[in-house]
Each structure stands twice: as structure tokens, then as C-alpha cells.
């Protein structure tokens, strides 16, 4: 009985962590969570001009948004699955 109780303690601790993670600083620190937290301030509202930024193209050359002024620009972020 005592051993079962002792074995249950770390399991219950992990269970509590699983339930509480979204409300902790650990849960908010991941790259995805950080990106989501930054997103509202980084993206302008519909119809507004985005601030100039630069990103590498497929060949690794930097491309600034200002270089594409006057053209239609579609910006997508995708994860390569190497398939």
C-alpha cells in the first residue's frame, strides 16, 4: 500500500503538471507559443501597410518587402516534410 502510494506521487505530480501547463510560464515559453504571443503586435490590421522586413528566399538571398512594392505579394510559412 505504501509503495503504491509512493509510486503514485510522481505520476500524480506529472498529471497535475499536464493539466496546469497552459497556465504556467513554461507553457508560454515555447517557440510556437512565443510566436502566437508576438503575432498580434507583428501583423498589421487588414488594409494597413506592413512594416518593411527582409526574409531569405529559396536560394538564401535576402528579399525585402520594400523591393516588391507595387507587385502582388503572397507570404506563406510552411514546414518542409522532405517527402
Amino acid at each position, binding site marked *: 500500500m505504501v509503495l*503504491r502510494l509512493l*509510486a*503514485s506521487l*510522481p*505520476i500524480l505530480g506529472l498529471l497535475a503538471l*499536464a493539466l496546469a501547463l497552459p497556465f504556467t510560464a513554461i507553457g508560454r515559453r*515555447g517557440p*510556437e507559443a512565443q510566436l502566437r504571443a508576438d503575432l498580434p503586435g507583428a501583423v498589421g490590421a487588414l488594409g494597413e501597410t506592413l512594416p518593411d522586413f527582409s526574409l531569405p528566399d529559396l536560394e538564401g538571398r535576402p528579399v525585402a518587402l520594400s523591393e516588391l512594392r507595387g507587385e502582388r505579394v503572397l507570404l506563406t510559412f510552411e514546414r518542409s*516534410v522532405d517527402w
Partner: protein
Amino acid sequence: MRLPLPYRALCGLVGAALVAAGLFLVLLFFVTHAPGSDPAIPTGPVGLYFAALGGCALVGWGGSLLAALRGAGAARGAGTASVLALVLGAVLSLSAWVLGDYHVWPGELLRSGAAGLLLLALAFTWARPRRAAAAPGDAA
């Protein structure tokens, strides 16, 4: 000595589910490599290979739980090993959730899945037969 019914049910259900999940992952490997098929899980060939290899281990784990139904000693040992594996799986899932790179596909399933694994670990901990119930000479 005959195993208690709740523990028999736990080992039987979890064992069968693990064998089914393992066979699914192995089958997925072959189906995904068929010409013209799309990957069913968002991973490359290497990830698919390791998923299938993990599936083989699941078949072994589930088979051990099903085989353990025959004796209290073996069932006790299989229960202990299962608790360790379930807790390890939960730690892995929670770590993946915290890392954030896996939010795109499984999302919150990682956290709820970890909670499910931990509840199963608790069930195995408490439903496991006592050492005295194991047959003499059985390793537990």
C-alpha cells in the same frame, strides 16, 4: 491464482489496443510507400521508419500484456514495466508540448494524451496484483 477481473480487463484492453496501434503503424509504413499514396502522418521517410519500428515495439508490449493474463507473477512484472513505459511516454508528450514544434499537427492532443497515459499508469499501479498473489517462483 486467478487475476482480479479489473486487472484482467485492464491488461486485455490495453494489450489489444497496443497490438492494434502497433500493427497500424507497421501497415502505415507499407501503405505510404505504395506508388501514388500521400503520407498519412506529416513526417519524412526517416520519421515513418521510426514510427513503424515503434509500432513493432508496441506489438511486443501489447503481446506481453496479453500473455501476462495467464499468471499473476508475469502480470505483476508486466504491470510494472507498463507503468514505466506509460510515464516515459507522458514525459515525452509533455516535453513535445512545451517545445512547441509539434503544435501544428497534434496540438493539444499531446497534453491530453499525456494525461491519459498517466491515468493508465495509475490504473496499472493500483490494479496490479499484490506480491503475495504471485505464484511461488514467479519473477515480479
